[in-house]
């Protein structure tokens, strides 16, 4: 085997320029594949993260609605007491949009093996009083430290300290758009009126920018206790429970299970954000297609050059066979030749590709929508290096296989006598 490698290397050295061109094709395609997929997936993660990082995998909530089965329907449609439901304009009964027994539900979820985190939320519809005008808005009461840990809250906080917000009462973090409308600065007091008319003064402790301008004009965050006080509700009053799972794909099944178990509404991330997954899939598919086409083109390059080398080296093949090298030895020599080109090309391609990734990673990219990003995002995942290299090796093997088989079948008598 070492002898065959030596022969392959010697033949390669004799045709150095063509070999370099062939390896260069592989290098180029691998580099492009790695750079393209890294960049594309970096963008995907960034864009998905914009929504997905902040979206719970399962959200439990309690919407007020009329009973699915009205009392009159319980009577039945048969017999003497038969009844028909023709009542319209039913209204839900007066109740609070809270989750009943929220503490117990959170306790149970906390023990579930599939669950990564459970965070409560309290949403309040409010009016911000600015002079004589009122701006409608929402205040999210959150457990700040948990939001930081599981929902990347600090990434969107452009001013203010999360710890400060978590520990001090009567503070609020305004959306950047909302703050601009109110001309509010940090430390200012803003007046908030709830839907039921209670007024409270809150101190501005920070600004956040989600990247989605419409949100930032109406949303604000506060410590959950602050919002409970704002609404004059007890400390166990929560409107939402957000659940993050270890495995995102289990969300739809778990949402169904939790909805029946706790008798609440539950939505999963896949249903809530179906369009993001589709977009991601399509982008990934296009990048793979382009990358694989590049590799196949490189494969044709190797195929051509190998065919040429074999054509020029018919004498060598004949003499190897005459002196006792078998057809399969010759086939192995040319397969090795192809694989050496592939391995050298792939190694060079990886180096070049990772270099390109680092260059892209350092290109400035500033956008108002993404406060935490100042250069292009790149995913440096080893998965792409692995895919690129294994696909390149497979391509070079196939590209080498047919010429090598041809070389194995060269009839030495024909070459030697034909001279």
């Amino acid at each position: 085997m070492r002898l065959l490698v030596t022969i392959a290397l010697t033949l390669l050295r004799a045709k150095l320029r063509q070999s370099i061109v062939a390896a260069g094709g592989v290098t180029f395609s691998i580099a492009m594949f790695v750079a393209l997929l890294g960049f594309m997936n970096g963008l995907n993660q960034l864009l998905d993260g914009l929504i997905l990082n902040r979206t719970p995998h399962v959200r439990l909530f309690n919407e007020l609605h009329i009973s699915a089965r009205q009392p009159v329907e319980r009577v039945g449609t048969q017999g003497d007491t038969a009844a028909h439901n023709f009542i319209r304009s039913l209204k839900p009964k007066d109740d609070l949009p809270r989750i009943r027994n929220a503490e117990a539900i959170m306790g149970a979820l906390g023990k579930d093996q599939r669950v990564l985190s459970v965070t409560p939320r309290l949403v309040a519809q409010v009016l911000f009083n600015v002079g004589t005008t009122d701006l409608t808005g929402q205040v999210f009461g959150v457990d700040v430290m948990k939001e930081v840990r599981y929902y990347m809250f600090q990434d969107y906080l452009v001013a203010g300290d999360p710890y400060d917000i978590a520990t001090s009462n009567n503070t609020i973090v305004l959306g950047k758009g909302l703050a601009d409308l109110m001309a509010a600065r940090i430390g200012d007091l803003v007046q908030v009126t709830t839907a039921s008319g209670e007024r409270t003064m809150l101190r501005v402790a920070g600004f956040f920018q989600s990247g989605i301008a419409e949100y930032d004009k109406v949303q604000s965050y506060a410590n959950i206790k602050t919002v409970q006080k704002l609404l004059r509700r007890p400390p166990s009053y929560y409107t939402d429970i957000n659940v993050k799972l270890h495995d995102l794909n289990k969300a739809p099944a778990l949402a169904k299970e939790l909805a029946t178990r706790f008798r609440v509404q539950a939505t999963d991330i896949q249903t809530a954000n179906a369009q993001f997954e589709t977009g991601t899939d399509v982008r990934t598919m296009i990048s793979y297609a382009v990358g694989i086409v590049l590799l196949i083109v490189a494969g044709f390059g190797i195929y051509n050059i190998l065919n040429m080398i074999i054509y020029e080296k018919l004498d060598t093949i004949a003499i190897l066979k005459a002196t006792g090298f078998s057809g399969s030895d010759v086939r192995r020599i040319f397969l090795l030749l192809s694989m050496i080109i592939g391995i050298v090309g792939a190694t060079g391609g990886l180096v070049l590709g990772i270099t390109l990734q680092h260059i892209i990673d350092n290109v400035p990219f500033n956008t108002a929508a993404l406060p935490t990003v100042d250069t292009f995002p790149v995913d440096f995942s080893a998965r792409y290096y692995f895919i690129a290299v294994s696909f390149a090796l497979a391509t070079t093997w196939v590209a080498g296989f047919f010429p090598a088989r041809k070389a194995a079948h060269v009839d030495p008598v024909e070459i030697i006598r034909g001279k």
Partner: protein
Amino acid sequence: MNTTTPVLHVEKVNRSFHDPVDLHVLKDVDLRVERGEFVSITGKSGCGKSTLLYILSTMDTDYSGELYIDGEAAHQASKERLARIRNEKIGFVFQFHYLLPEFSVLHNVMLPGLKLGMKSSGEVEHRAMELLHELGIGDQALKKANQVSGGQKQRVAIARALINDPLIIMGDEPTGNLDSQNTGIVFDIFRRIANEHRRSLLIVTHDPDFAKRTDRIIEMDDGRIVR
């Protein structure tokens, strides 16, 4: 190895070409070559002498009849086995030297020995140098194969044929491309191989002077051995 077994033995070998027209080239050829015999095959152009040689060399397998090399039935052997037989028991010298131009003279000689794998590469190299010195071209060992002269190339080819101590050396017009001085050198080497090394030689030639000086002349005409 039994010393009474003929090195080479064929019975009723027939060979036809079908392209471009049907042509019966070899007709019931029988032949034996004993150990240490220096045999030449002569005949007119197209009489089938080269065709016979390539069948004997095991490279051409498209024939009918029986071929025994050192007692082993080569007509039944697999292609892999035939490659091994060529490597181990047969040495070749062609009209055009057929060295590998990418390799040095020394490596050209060593390759069949390395392929055989019976000796370490150091031993093969030592043996190759020995042969090159014996043939008077030891000083050319590290040159590329295409940098030495025609007569020297043919001697390199002979050294390569000898590297695995084969039972028989076959030559297809080995002196056909050489001047008379180099032809003399090559003949003397062949003679020495036969006498001193006790190797058999089977040389196809159309040079009557060369043939006359061999132990036995096989003359062919129209696909048959006539003498």
